[in-house]
């Protein structure tokens, strides 16, 4: 078989993308504190150590709580914005929608510093999980809008009108018809927001209170070389979890498209 230049390029590119991630599970199961080849032996000891680390458990609980709250709030806000963008008519619509999508491209470090100054210096608030949640909602909402925008754009406006026509009120028409039809988008948005929040580091590092989130805790561990394999083990679990969540999200996005009778164009998986 002849391998073309483009083929070689594609293979190199894939190696570049995934080699670091492949290293995670390799060293997570390696029986040595030093991260280096050759491998010395197989162990599940690092995972066992994870199970006994209570400080880490606290960080994971924090992160899960923050991710869950951020996902729910961001998706709620995103649903409202996407619906307004798709069906509403109001002045400066394009400008407003563009403006709330902006955090998508703003550097997180800028958002983090700005929020720290505002929350602590100006508003005099104490840093806590809720300050992190607020900031994560800020960065997750644009993603939520982007996902749900598709769901609402693809929705035939006659659907809701038909429900109204058949005797439902605006609210019950939304609940009985619109909501089930955009539900795949909502689930997809929840999962992606959850994933973004879960592994977000910069903002959490600035805004976290006395209880660190998981990424912040991991960063703290890096100062101790002996704990590196534990981080590898944790990383392995996180990567697996992320892939599972994103796959579920993509499944729901596609199912939504199939229901609406749209041919799939793109998507991220």
């Amino acid at each position, binding site marked *: 078989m002849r391998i073309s230049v483009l083929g070689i390029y594609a293979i190199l590119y894939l190696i570049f993308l995934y080699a670091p991630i492949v290293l995670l599970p390799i060293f997570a199961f390696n029986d040595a504190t030093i991260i280096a080849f050759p491998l010395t032996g197989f162990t599940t000891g690092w995972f066992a150590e994870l199970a006994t680390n209570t400080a880490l458990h606290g960080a994971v609980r924090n992160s899960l709580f923050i991710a869950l709250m951020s996902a729910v709030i961001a998706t709620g806000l995103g649903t409202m914005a996407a619906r307004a963008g798709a069906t509403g008519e109001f002045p400066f619509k394009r400008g407003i929608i563009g403006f709330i999508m902006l955090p998508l491209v703003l550097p997180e470090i800028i958002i983090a510093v700005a929020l720290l100054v505002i929350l602590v210096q100006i508003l005099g608030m104490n840093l806590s999980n809720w300050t992190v949640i607020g900031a994560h909602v800020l960065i997750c909402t644009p993603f939520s809008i982007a996902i749900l925008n598709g769901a609402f754009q693809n929705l035939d406006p*006659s659907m809701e*009108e038909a429900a109204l026509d*058949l005797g*439902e009120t605006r609210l019950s028409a939304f609940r009985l018809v619109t909501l089930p*039809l955009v539900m795949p988008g909502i689930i997809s948005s929840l999962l992606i927001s959850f994933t973004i929040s879960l592994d977000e580091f910069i903002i959490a590092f600035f805004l976290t209170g006395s209880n660190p989130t998981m990424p912040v805790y991991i960063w703290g561990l890096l100062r101790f070389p002996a704990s590196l394999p534990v981080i590898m083990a944790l990383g392995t679990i996180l990567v697996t979890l992320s892939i599972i969540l994103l796959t579920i999200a993509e499944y729901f996005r596609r199912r939504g498209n199939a229901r609406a*009778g749209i041919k799939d164009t793109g998507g991220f998986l």
Partner: protein
Amino acid sequence: MTALIHLTGVQKYYGDYHALRGIDLEIRKGEFFSLLGPSGCGKTTLLRTIAGFETVSSGTLMIDGKDMKGVPANLRPTNMVFQSYAIFPHLSVGENVGFGLRKYPMTKDEKARAVGEALEMVGLGGYGARAAHALSGGQRQRVALARALILKPKVLLLDEPLSALDKKMREQMQVELIKLQRQVGITFILVTHDQEEALVMSDRIAVMFEGEIGQLADPETLYRRPNSRRVAEFIGKMNFLPGEVTKLGERITVEVPGLGTSEIGKEQAPGGAKLGRSLIGVRPETLAIQFEGEATDRRVADATVDEVVYYGDMTYYDVRIAGIEKPLTISMKNLIGRPVLDVGTRTRVIWDERSLVVLAR
């Protein structure tokens, strides 16, 4: 028959756009009424106004004696079949049809029976358990009909319901809709841009142009006696001849170059006749080619065949008559023994005073 829907001076603005420019209309109980017009004429806006999806900018809309001002769509005695059918894809066929019964004080069994009967009525008996998103276009339309009719509305609104179907299916559904309307006796209001569809199905038709009603009449009157050039152009084919009205009275005298002087009845000027230059309309099928050996006691004019279009059952001729600038189109049935004439053949055109229509300028 009594009027079910009363529109008085109904206007609708979208910002600066004047979508409905003062509609006065009465729609009778139990009639099949059509709103016909080119796209953008306001027919769909008018339908949506009756349904309650658009508010009236000024004027009044009464349904069954009640002013509909401030009454939302869900509280009006109307139901609608949408152009896209808007079948809920996440529900089964039966759940779609029974959707409007949710708030009715009926037992589960009663509702199931009503759904079954409604599906039976549209020829989809036994389809209740099927998934709605797996239906064909024609089946979707039937489900949409059943879903709207199950609530026994006073008025059924149909927004271009046949436009998404292929020709054969469309013709079949036209007949079924007429039968259905007679069976249930509900007032149907159909929006369509298809003149043939409107003629086939309606008791009365309102032809709309640019937010106004151009003519309101039964199909035969509309076809035979259009009141203006735009109505005549929109419905069927018509030849337009420049002419002159020379005398008004019980009978109207018109002078048409090439055809001479004719006396016609007042009903042949439905838009009103005025003395002076006028536009005269003649339908192609009211003219005839005089084939060899055919005698006639009607009026004739010498002509030359300019163009021949053969349709199988019909042949359309464009013929030139001395004194008339544009060729006249004539449609002829291809009866046994009738030849198809060649271009350039000299022939004679048979015509009749009764086929002339004076169009309002």
